[in-house]
């Protein structure tokens, strides 16, 4: 499904600030995999996801998605087959546009843009069905401008928009970290539901160890730009937070330095 081979990304190359954010990473993701990614700050998690999404050119390596080489594709071209949700709940929607206008863009994402009406009866029907599933009452507020929604509602809408066109790959970058705990739980459940219902291959960065263990079928731990553990199905089922922390300390040669990760235990 997704094959990453020898991926390297260096920031500020050739300057005193040179920083190898991702070091020679290879990763083979199977169709339907739901991978959680953990690691301390600066481990290269976001860089890995951004490299896949084509946000910047990489220095070495290849990224193959669904048998197509996407290594050199730029962000918007990659996006046709990749859904993304960011940490900032404001990042994924257009605030001045209505819920239905936002969703319209997401529904017709894989098709070429045209001068056809952005909204139609059939499109609204599809929208209502999808919005009913996320159970926030948004199906009754199609013409509300998105800026009037709460952060949680906006993130739920973003998640729906990222998955509604059935992407080959879903990239989640700490997408619940900026939400209050109760809302975060709702969004996590919604994530699991949407991913499982549509069988979308997913990579999810999280700082919450419990979520990393609970969600998905595979866990990757990164440190210093490398993958230090890749824990699959059965083995993952036996993981505990304590075990995971110990494993990290063994490889890292020191305590877990991320306060946020400790606090969220």
């Amino acid at each position, binding site marked *: 499904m997704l094959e990453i081979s020898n991926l390297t990304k260096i920031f500020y190359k050739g300057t005193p600030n040179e920083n190898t954010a991702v070091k020679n990473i290879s990763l083979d993701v199977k169709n339907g995999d739901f991978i959680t990614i953990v690691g301390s700050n600066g481990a290269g998690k976001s860089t890995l996801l951004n490299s896949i999404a084509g946000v910047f050119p990489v220095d070495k390596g290849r990224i193959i998605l669904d048998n197509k080489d996407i290594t050199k594709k730029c*962000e*918007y*071209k990659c*996006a*046709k087959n990749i*859904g*993304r949700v*960011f940490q900032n709940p*404001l*990042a*994924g*929607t*257009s*605030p*001045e*546009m209505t819920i239905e*206008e*936002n969703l*319209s*863009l*997401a529904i*017709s*994402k*894989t098709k070429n*843009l*045209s*001068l*056809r*009406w*952005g*909204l139609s009866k059939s499109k609204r029907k599809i929208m209502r069905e999808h919005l009913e599933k996320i159970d926030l009452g948004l199906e009754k507020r199609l013409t509300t401008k998105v800026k009037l929604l709460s952060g949680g509602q906006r993130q739920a809408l973003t998640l729906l*928009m*990222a998955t509604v066109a059935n992407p080959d790959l879903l990239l989640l970058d700490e997408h619940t970290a900026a939400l209050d705990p109760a809302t975060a739980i709702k969004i996590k459940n919604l994530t699991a539901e949407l991913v499982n219902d549509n069988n979308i291959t997913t990579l999810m960065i999280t700082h919450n160890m419990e979520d990393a263990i609970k969600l998905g079928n595979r866990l990757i731990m990164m440190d210093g730009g490398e993958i230090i553990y890749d824990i699959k199905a059965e083995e993952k089922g036996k993981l505990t937070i304590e075990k995971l922390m110990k494993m990290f300390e063994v490889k890292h040669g020191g305590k877990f330095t991320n306060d946020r990760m400790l606090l969220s235990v």
Partner: protein
Amino acid sequence: MSLGFAITSLEQGLAFSIMALGVFISFRILDFADLTVDGSLPLGAAVSARMIMAGYDPFYSLAAALLAGAGAGFITGFLNTRLKIAPLLAGILTMTSLYSINLRVMGRPNIPLLGRENIFTKVRDLGISYPWYSLLLLLVIIMVVKLLLDAFLNTQIGFAMRATGDNPQMIRSMGISTNTMKMLGLIISNALVSLSGALVGQYQGFADVNMGVGAIIAGLASVIIGEVIIGTKSMIIATFGVIIGSIVYRFSISIALNLGLAASDLKLLTAILVIFFLSTPRIRKALR
């Protein structure tokens, strides 16, 4: 204010409202401070005047102005999206080049059109009396432009363009090129500004290479006045607001002139007006 004065203000407001719609597209929809306007407005007037002098049908000259403006928008878009020149500078570069181009198009700084056949005299000759012929024609043209623009903004491409100015990150993750959308928006915006220039030129009876000075500020003033008076609840309401804003703006100018203000002071007055409207939200916040 006499009736004649009011009619002139109304007609000027209508003729300039298409320019204001162009400014609305670049400033409000694309969030792109496009100064090309100061050059593409006289460009439209220049192209139209030159064609009328050469004996072409004045209505055809409107279409030519539209295309010329689209070209100007394309250049600014190219400078910004391909050559990565900042929006403000890209607009200024095109505007400055257009000064020379406009002089080339006209062959001299000013072309008087008095006594020539234009779109207004053509309608008058159909047997419609003063002031209805010019008012009617302008209203019809503006209705057509507004309806087409409203329709466009509700198509899939229109949605994508609106989101581009609102949240470019989101539109990229929807698999749409923000560069293409900016380019398209600037083309449409400047095409409208140029069309407006052609209308104004024919209405006032001359094209002048300096008629674009401060056009962007006048356009912005119209957009802001429209937002304050009419609001921005939906695109249809917002574009209606822009037209009303343009009319109100021209009336205020006329009133200021009637009160004895020198015509040369108008640019200052307009700038102060825009500063006032742009800063009110902040001042209100500070006073709270």
